[in-house]
């Protein structure tokens, strides 16, 4: 059972490695955005935060890369396998359906961690981004919970869409819109209309982005393992709760609506 899960995960990783477009959007583009943003905005210290632009953007773009893998790629790859008839064909083998789905999620999760690592490595090597060791465990936990949350939402997208084309459109449209309002790409200091901020609070991406990137801010107090902090404290509890709720919601939708065959 575990051996099969391992081989199926490797199988899914192999498929990803042979899809150049997917590699570009998941592995290359987020790091490219980091370079472009830092070169355009300059790597100055942000007033009052004690960090550089790159120190701020590197973790949020790492989150973006992870979400591109766990959400967008998983949704498209799963819907593509369904379009090809592969999911249906596998249901007539002894491979348990749960192992099949678990392997797809495990592979997307590993790709997500790799995508985040690529952006973090670029930030550290090119722009001297610093890790905060005492905050790292909470940041990594947030990233992993966030990846699972977005994987569940990615499966929900695959379940909601009849074709891979539709899944691609829905996944990309939602993630880009939410990323822009969630300060993942740029953070115009204090110039965001409050209603946009409040809307972004509803979606899980801003919570994931903050929970992870606050772990790289030296001026915040604490190691993050607290439910809710104030302006000066790092706390991942509340963001984790929001992500878990979205993840459960996504899992319920995916479980209820998922179809194995072409439609």
């Amino acid at each position: 059972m575990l051996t099969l899960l391992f081989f199926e995960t490797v199988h899914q990783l192999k498929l990803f490695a042979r899809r150049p477009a997917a590699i570009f959007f998941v592995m290359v583009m987020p790091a490219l955005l980091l370079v472009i943003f830092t070169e355009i905005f300059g790597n100055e210290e942000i007033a009052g935060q004690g960090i550089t632009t790159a120190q701020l953007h590197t973790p949020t773009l790492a989150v973006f890369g992870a979400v591109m893998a766990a959400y967008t790629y998983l949704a498209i790859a799963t819907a593509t396998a369904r379009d090809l008839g592969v999911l249906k064909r596998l249901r007539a083998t002894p491979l348990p359906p749960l192992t099949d789905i678990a392997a797809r999620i495990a592979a997307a999760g590993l790709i997500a961690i790799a995508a985040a690592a690529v952006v973090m490595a670029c930030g550290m090597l090119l722009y001297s981004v610093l890790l905060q060791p005492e905050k790292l465990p909470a940041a990594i936990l947030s990233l992993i919970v966030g990846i699972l949350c977005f994987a569940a939402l990615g499966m929900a997208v695959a379940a909601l869409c009849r074709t891979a084309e539709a899944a691609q459109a829905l996944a990309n449209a939602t993630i880009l819109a939410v990323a822009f309002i969630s300060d993942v790409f740029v953070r115009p200091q204090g110039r965001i209309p409050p209603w946009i901020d409040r809307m972004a609070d509803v979606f899980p991406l801003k919570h994931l982005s903050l929970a992870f990137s606050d772990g790289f801010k030296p001026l915040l107090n604490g190691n993050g393992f607290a439910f809710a902090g104030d302006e000066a404290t790092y706390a991942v509890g509340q963001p984790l709760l929001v992500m878990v709720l979205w993840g459960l919601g996504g899992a319920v939708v995916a479980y209820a609506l998922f179809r194995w065959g072409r439609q």
Partner: protein
Amino acid sequence: MSLIVVRNLRKSYGALVALDGISFDVERGETFALIGPDGAGKTTTLEILEGYRKRDAGDVLVGGLDPGLRSPRLYRGIGIVLQETALEPELTVKETVRGFSRYYPQALSVDRVLDFVALRRLERQRVAALSVGQKRRLEIALAVIGDPEVLLLDEPTAGLDPEARRNLWRVIAALNGEGKTILLSSSDMAEVEALAGRLAILLDGRILASGRPHELQRALGPEPTVELHLGGEALPRLFPQTLRAIARFERGWVRLECRDPGPVAYELLLWAVRNQYDLSSLTIARPSLEALYLKATRRDEQEAAC
């Protein structure tokens, strides 16, 4: 012993009756064919046997198991080829088969199976680069890799060119030779005659006739035909009165349908020799199963159109 049993199987999609109570058995080691035009219910039947679709009524057993329960034991014992190709284009031939071999407790050797379907030479080729016929053979490899007793093949040769089709026939015949029990669907009578020991003609969700090819030929009907080319525009005035009742004349040919062709041919011969007709075109033949099948399905379409 029957490895596949179907009794009074019914299935409707809304108001459309796809299967209107069909029954058949497939014996161990036999190749059985379901033949019929598109929409006759072949894929519905196979997908019920494969556990993909639920039946409305009737009994179905595959290897003694109810496929509606979708048990892992069922899927260890059957190998399938779906009507539409279902392969990952990014994988190589060998990776595809090796991947499937991990699902089965008693999988055959990947090399042996690739040899069997004549794809060993292409084992490093990406699936995307294979021809339609090669993809079909690869899917046969996936169907047999788990060494199943029963193979369910849904129009395996549809869309293949004649050579690829014959290659696939050889593979399917060899599988039957290895003792596999095969149920295949087809819309091509030549294919069914080449591969199947028994067949059932499926039309509008009903079995029109079933049995061995020669039995079907007798059951379906028309009698043997005596044919002779006479030329001319119509039956000659002197044509024997006794034969006129059963004679049809078309473009210079006279055709006589009769249960017992002996006396009819004798009388025709006597008359033709006496009147110095050329006898080189004389034939006595039973219509092919193909002709009977086409006639049967066409007749039904005509009735439906009325």
